[in-house]
């Protein structure tokens, strides 16, 4: 079953065509990687899907429903949660509060004015933090975590939204090799345990070919090809445009 379908989506900034008729789909339960050189438009593509940016043309369907141009908070409620490439969390709140906020928002409890927030969703927060391995740090202020831990917390915040589709923008950026493999193990475990569908972009080719079911290749704003790892590896266009240039 197709969970996400991107159909001919374009986006330009001041005349610069950042995304040109991007086209791909994600099936339920898959891990799909988006690869491409810097500036290929991967992050822009994710911003378009999650509603941070609005496409100029084209359509985005989620579970058969048109979600083109929805606001970010509406997209979140549909079950699409994302993490960011550059660490993007609530630095003055504790780890626990970071996750709790996301659950409060999901459950539409942010309008309670007189109840104590500390009484909400303690168990679910603990559960999520345990899944990602941050439970011992739950009372630490998020801004004081290490970079790797902050990236993991990013994922934990996204999990607070009970997503079906998790979009991860370079989840392992800036991580050491050990952290990277731990993070990717976590992601593939989450897919199994929670039945998630995962769309992510990544520069590390070992990670991409090691974990992705299918790969979308972007070059200068265009989705050149979508296919399995083998198909992508053998594709001539990809070799020329991307793999030949980098370390692959």
């Amino acid at each position, binding site marked *: 079953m197709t969970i996400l379908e991107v159909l001919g989506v374009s986006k330009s900034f001041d005349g610069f065509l950042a995304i040109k008729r991007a086209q791909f789909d994600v099936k339920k339960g898959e891990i799909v990687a988006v690869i491409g050189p810097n500036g290929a438009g991967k992050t822009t593509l994710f911003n378009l899907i999650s509603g941070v940016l609005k496409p100029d043309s084209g359509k985005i369907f989620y579970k058969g429903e048109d979600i083109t141009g929805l606001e*970010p908070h509406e997209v979140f409620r549909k079950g699409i949660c994302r993490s960011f490439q550059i660490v*993007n969390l*609530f630095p*003055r709140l504790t780890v626990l*509060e970071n996750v709790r906020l996301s659950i409060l928002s999901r459950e539409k409890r942010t309008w309670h004015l007189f109840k104590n927030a500390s009484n909400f969703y303690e168990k679910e927060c603990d559960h999520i933090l345990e899944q990602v391995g941050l439970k011992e740090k739950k009372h630490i202020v998020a801004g004081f975590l290490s970079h790797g831990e902050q990236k993991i917390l990013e994922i934990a915040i996204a999990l607070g939204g009970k997503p079906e589709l998790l979009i991860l923008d370079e989840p392992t950026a800036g991580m050491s090799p050990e952290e990277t493999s731990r993070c990717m193990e976590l992601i593939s475990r989450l897919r199994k345990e929670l039945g998630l569908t995962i769309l992510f972009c990544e520069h590390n080719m070992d990670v991409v070919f090691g974990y992705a079911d299918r790969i979308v290749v972007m070059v200068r704003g265009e989705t050149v090809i979508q296919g399995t790892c083998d198909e992508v590896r053998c594709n001539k266009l990809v070799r020329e445009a991307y793999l030949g240039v980098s370390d692959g």
Partner: protein
Amino acid sequence: MVAMKGSRRILLAMMVGLAFLPLFAPRFYTYLISLILVYGLLATSLNLALGYGGMFQFHHCVFYGVGAYTTALMITKTKLPAVLAFLAAPVSAALLSLIFGIICVRLSKLYFGMLQISLGSLVWVIVYRWYSFTGGDNGIHGIPIPEILASTKGAYYFTLLITSICMFILYLIVNSPFGRTLQGIRDNPTRSETIGVNVKLHQLVALIIAGFFAGVSGMLFVVVDTAVFPDMLFWTLSLEVLIMCLVGGWFSFLGPMLGSAVILTLRTIVSTYTVYWSLALGIVMSLVILFLPNGILGFIEERWGRAFK
């Protein structure tokens, strides 16, 4: 947890002290502490928008002034009972805050602050110039308030009671899911959006609440001082209240209240020696920014745990 209990004990002791204070303190000090409470409440309400909401509400005093004028005008110009005049203050302030909020909330950071100052100054000009209605730059003096509140002591107890109730409500709000969401928005509005929070709407509601309690403190000022004047809506007072938040600690709930105590006490003392009070204020402000970036209470919390959270 132990620190928590300790801080509660300190707070309780302070409340008891405040309750008995007018029985032995000279009238002037009773009056001064009433003012500290009034400005403390005002600063705390500002801090809901500023410290918790991350919105640069540069001209918060407008809501305070409008609240005060509402009470003053209703008492002097109508025959309605004073209770209604008291209740009308926060309502009118909240309404104005709603209007300002709708206009300002679409902007962020400094632009929000600049637009807020401009709108507030418009209200100030109206109050300042509309002699027939507001009394212009003379203001309104000798406002007859109910007899039971007219004495310094009566006004003090009324102020203490209302301020305590308001502070308690604000404390609840700050620690509620709404309060947390607001802090999240302060830390990271974009991320808040992507976890499903309607950022602008939450900010607007926070502004309305802040305006509401500013209106309450305006009403209290009328009770304490039996006068209103256009300076209450002038931007320099807003700046002073902003400084109270910064000096006391804008990331601590009781910081602004402490800031009010520090600034008003200093002003009272310094003003008896020199007319250059603002010079002293400037020095205090610079010292705080340089050495206590999180304010006095922020510093204490860092040193001795989050006792006053």
